[in-house]
């Protein structure tokens, strides 16, 4: 039953929400409008922009895939088990979020650069992280992995453990229970965390620019164009990546959005 006060509350929520949405939409819209359809079409025809878009999207995808393989098990562990130092581990996973991006790039350089501990180890195999795609993937992975791990962990936590126990009593291994009981219920949340991570990856600048200025990801290209050629030159690549990302997010959300009552609650 709704009285007058509850609807005032909802109205306040809507107003606050509208302000925030406007805050986001205004710069995005002004950029898109400022670039204009002609400029965007022209941009798509430019080799270096197309290459940069592809590089950015695919490097972020690789980083997300790596994080998926390594991060999902960790997320599951954090969701299910208690152990000494668990809070510290969770804090460490969130560390890349607070790292200033350029500082993260420098930190990665000292370890994975030509003279770094790992850089030197891998150099004989021809693996280099400076001025290479591998370096871009590394930087993106570092700064955006908390998004996947945290989201996956929360999702797993919401899946009722009892179902796993039931699976175990029926003879399943812990791994089997995870694959056949937990993950099917959790995959949407995990995937939405992956999409978030991908989005964070494609927008990274500070860490990437230190490790791998070349080949240029879209954020570096935009910066260089702005610095070197002015606003008009910088808008097309920036707008294109925003549009690409927006489309991806939209598709992901419509595909992944859990319908009410499914996969989040115990549907006995």
């Amino acid at each position, binding site marked *: 039953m709704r009285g007058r006060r509850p609807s005032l509350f909802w109205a306040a929520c809507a107003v606050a929400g509208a302000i925030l949405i406007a805050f986001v939409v205004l710069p995005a819209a002004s950029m898109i409008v400022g670039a204009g359809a002609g400029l965007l079409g022209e941009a798509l025809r430019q080799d270096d922009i197309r290459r940069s878009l592809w590089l950015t999207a695919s490097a972020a995808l690789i980083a997300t895939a790596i994080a998926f393989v390594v991060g999902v098990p960790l997320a599951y562990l954090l969701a299910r088990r208690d152990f000494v130092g668990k809070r510290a581990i969770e804090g460490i996973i969130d560390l890349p979020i607070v790292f200033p991006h350029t500082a993260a790039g420098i930190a990665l350089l000292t370890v994975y650069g030509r003279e770094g501990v790992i850089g030197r180890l891998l150099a004989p195999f021809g693996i280099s992280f400076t001025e290479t795609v591998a370096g871009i993937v590394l930087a993106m992975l570092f700064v955006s992995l908390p998004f996947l791990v945290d989201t996956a962990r929360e999702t797993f936590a919401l899946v009722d453990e009892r179902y796993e126990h039931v699976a175990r009593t029926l003879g399943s291994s812990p791994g089997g229970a995870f694959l056949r009981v937990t993950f099917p219920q959790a995959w949407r949340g995990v995937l939405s965390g992956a999409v978030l991570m991908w989005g964070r990856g494609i927008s990274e600048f500070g860490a990437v620019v230190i490790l791998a200025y*070349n080949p240029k990801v879209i954020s570096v290209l935009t910066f260089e164009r702005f610095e070197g050629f002015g606003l008009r030159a910088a808008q097309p690549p920036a707008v294109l990546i925003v549009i690409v990302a927006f489309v991806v997010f939209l598709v992901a959300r419509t595909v992944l959005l859990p319908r009410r009552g499914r996969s989040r609650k115990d549907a006995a």
Partner: protein
Amino acid sequence: MLSSIHTRARPSTAAALAAAVLLVALGLVIVGCGSDKRQVKLMYAGSLIVPFEQLAAEFERSHPDVDVLTESHGSIQVLRHVTELGDRFDLAVSADEQLIPPLMYDRVDHETGEPYASWYCTFATNRMVLAISPKSPLAGELDARTWYRRLTQPDVRFGLADPRFDAAGYRALMLLQLAEREYDDPYLFEDMMMGRFTTPVTVTRNAGGVDVIEVPEILETQSGGNLVLRGASIQLVALLESGDLDCAFEYESVARQHGLEYVRLPSSIDLGEAGRRADYRRVEVKLDFRRFASVKPVFRGDVIRYAFTIPANAPEPGLAGELAAFLLGDDGRRILEEDHQPVLTPPRLDNASAAPEEVRRACGGSR
């Protein structure tokens, strides 16, 4: 297992904490908004960072009511920030005096209808060297006779400033072309540049005339090409120190400031000897801007000369004049020399009649 989203703190404690944080944030915003110091904005070429940060600090000490705000980029960027990005600076300092006429005299400020600048003051010089990373196996191996051959070998990674954005970049290209005459190697430039860029940098030799180096608008390094490009030459220093570069073309002042070992190059190519102007002028670099600029910038080889101007739209021209006088005076000279930046004595003015009184005085009267 309790999910971590279930907070253990009681709601009232959490609310109190949130309120406290918000109040502190608000307080910081209010405090930050008030500042009664006068500000002078200094925009300068990256290679000057060490002496100029010291200059700014000492100026602030002798002028306690003034805040010096500094920003640095490659020389071309420095001037474009004023003329194309609409930034307003009190002092703009370039590592190449010849950039100021085409990029500032010839550009008109739409707001005032006047050129962005109409004079400049040349105050310092430098020379190009090949700086070597302390962590490189090349340390001790390179010398003035053999460096160019070693650099073309696949295991050497060298760094270059982007010639489209930084004077040090096109100066390094000029150096390489001039080296052909010095070392009597007509293929030196191509050997050095082959396979380094996705769109190549080319040179057209005009026997007896001026060799023209053309830089494409989109300059991208080829992966595996072992050439590292950065928008400002100063950014190469960090890579030299970390060992991610074996060597890089840098200004001598910068190499000395950072304690880097370097190869001193022949004066016929290092752009540092006033008497060699005729040699240096035998090469020019043309930036092949097609899409973004109606003018294709051309830079002629010449002795390295650092210059500054006070843009016509400077927000604090009075303070700018004081800072300029400080730079040209005893204090400025001392700081520059301490930091291995060779000073031009006396400083020279271009179009002196347009320059403010303090600058003219500091340059020793008119002319």
